[in-house]
């Protein structure tokens, strides 16, 4: 199948922030069966991120406050180059800037790399103290940043949206109008707190974080569906996918490909291979020939 013009062996993609800090991780994930990989969100300067614990489990998934740990765009892009060095695999370079100028500088840097796509993380809920309200919640910011990036970027651009936006369909439309080539949705749901009652303390060092995993799947499905009905650009669906049925549902809702994050924790890196097998089993049982046959075919009641 294809995604934004690139041939991919499977629609299953590594979500940003999971393992994807080094070329070794990224290559490994492709070898283990993913169709594409997304890097951690890279910023202009290196970032240590928050102190641990950065991940707290709860009944419905994970709450994380990694805080955008990354080696910075220069070292990050070295990893992307090494990833592509004599290795076949499609990469999505995720970047995070504090304003549209930073996004533009990041996009320019990515232009010179072998990275296949550029993903704009407009929606990290973990760095609000530092960067204020996520851009993905502010219509004008979406338009401003996507427009500015599209003016300089030579890569197809994905805008990553936040489930916290009150009107995500509007955000999707604005991103499309500003020239985005695709959407990634959804980022983690902000904000969750996991409490350790014995210690009377939040588990996360940063007190709260973004919610991911099975618990956000119904939200992701609804938002992807709404966006799918409004925009023509492809959607990289993400949020709570942990098995083949989840991935099928997400594609039926309207995703053209599906990214997996938290389930790597739950099921290990095999999740890509197993999920793909589960999807294919479903498809052959129910008479679907191609992954693309699934996209958007949900019939609403």
């Amino acid at each position, binding site marked *: 199948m294809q995604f934004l013009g690139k041939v991919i062996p499977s629609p299953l993609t590594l979500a940003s922030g999971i393992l994807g800090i080094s070329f070794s991780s990224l290559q490994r994930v492709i070898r283990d069966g993913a169709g594409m990989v997304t890097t951690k969100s890279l910023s202009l300067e290196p970032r240590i991120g928050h102190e*641990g614990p950065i991940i707290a489990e709860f009944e419905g998934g994970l709450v994380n406050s990694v805080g955008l740990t990354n080696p910075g765009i220069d070292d990050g892009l070295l990893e992307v180059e090494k990833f592509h060095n004599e290795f076949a695999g499609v990469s999505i370079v995720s970047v995070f800037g504090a304003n549209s100028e930073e996004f533009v500088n990041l996009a320019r840097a990515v232009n010179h790399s072998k990275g296949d796509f550029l993903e704009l993380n407009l929606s990290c809920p973990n760095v609000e103290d530092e960067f204020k309200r996520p851009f993905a919640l502010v219509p004008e910011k979406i338009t401003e940043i996507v427009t500015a990036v599209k003016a300089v970027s030579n890569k197809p651009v994905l805008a990553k949206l936040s489930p916290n936006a009150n009107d995500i369909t509007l955000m999707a439309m604005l991103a499309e109008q500003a020239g985005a080539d695709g959407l990634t949705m959804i980022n983690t749901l902000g904000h969750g707190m996991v409490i350790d009652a014995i210690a009377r303390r939040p588990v996360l060092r940063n007190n709260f974080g973004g919610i991911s995993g099975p618990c956000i799947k119904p939200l992701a499905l609804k938002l992807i569906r709404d966006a799918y009905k409004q925009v023509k650009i492809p959607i990289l669906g993400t949020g709570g996918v942990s098995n083949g049925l989840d991935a099928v549902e997400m594609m039926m809702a309207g995703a053209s490909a599906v990214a997996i994050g938290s389930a790597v924790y739950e099921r290990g890196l095999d999740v890509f291979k197993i999920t793909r097998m589960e999807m294919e089993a479903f498809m052959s049982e129910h008479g679907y020939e191609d992954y693309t046959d699934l996209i958007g075919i949900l019939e609403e009641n």
Partner: protein
Amino acid sequence: MKRDRQTLPIAAIREENPSLRTFRFDTQLEAQAGQFVMLTLFGEGEKPFSILDENADSVYITVKNVGPFTNRLFELQVGALVSIRGPYGVAFSLENKRVLMVGGGFATPPLRFLAKSLRARGIDYLVNVNGARSQADLLYVSDFEELCDRSLIATDDGSLGHRGTSVDVMQDILEEETFDCIYISGPERMMKAAVDVARKYGIPFEVNLERYMKCGVGICGSCVMDPNGLILCKEGPVVGHETLAKVQEFGVSHRDKTGRILEI
């Protein structure tokens, strides 16, 4: 997704030497030698520590005071609440019958636990080489003596045992005897030297690696090793000789807290 985090008081603190303390927690982890826990100090952070020992009632870790987190831990008294999760990672294998253990510096706690486990399981011949800068830095000398068939010591300054490194002693031993497996735990340079010796003699080995670890559960990517993408927190910290052959960064480089590559 189930919770495996436990919040509990420090049950006892033993001072091994001015910069080294052993902490007891009264809980059960069913840990094996080589595995580790992630320890949270509330308001401070969370860091990985090897399990020194576990018995029916308690789990022990030994900590060296090296920076902000360990400083803070050394300020805590018995009764202070901390949180641990684990055990995580791959342990040392226990099938071998003729075993050599080579430890350096303060990375010997897992070897002590290993010696105990091998003994409990039944072993034909167990030799330990315990190396440190000087006598004062040596750990668990009498424990190793008790648990092993031969227990040798190397100090850089010769203040006890052989003057030199544990790798020197290892080399001497391998000239005389052979083993099913060599278990190595120490600073990375020392392990690199020990691995070269083990390879020279064609003896299988397992090393106990350390990398920066933040999540401990294979999701954040901090501990992943180049170029094969070994996820050390899940697929290590104990790594066998075949896998190690693919980990080209061993002894060469590691990554800092942001993921940048640093030379070792």
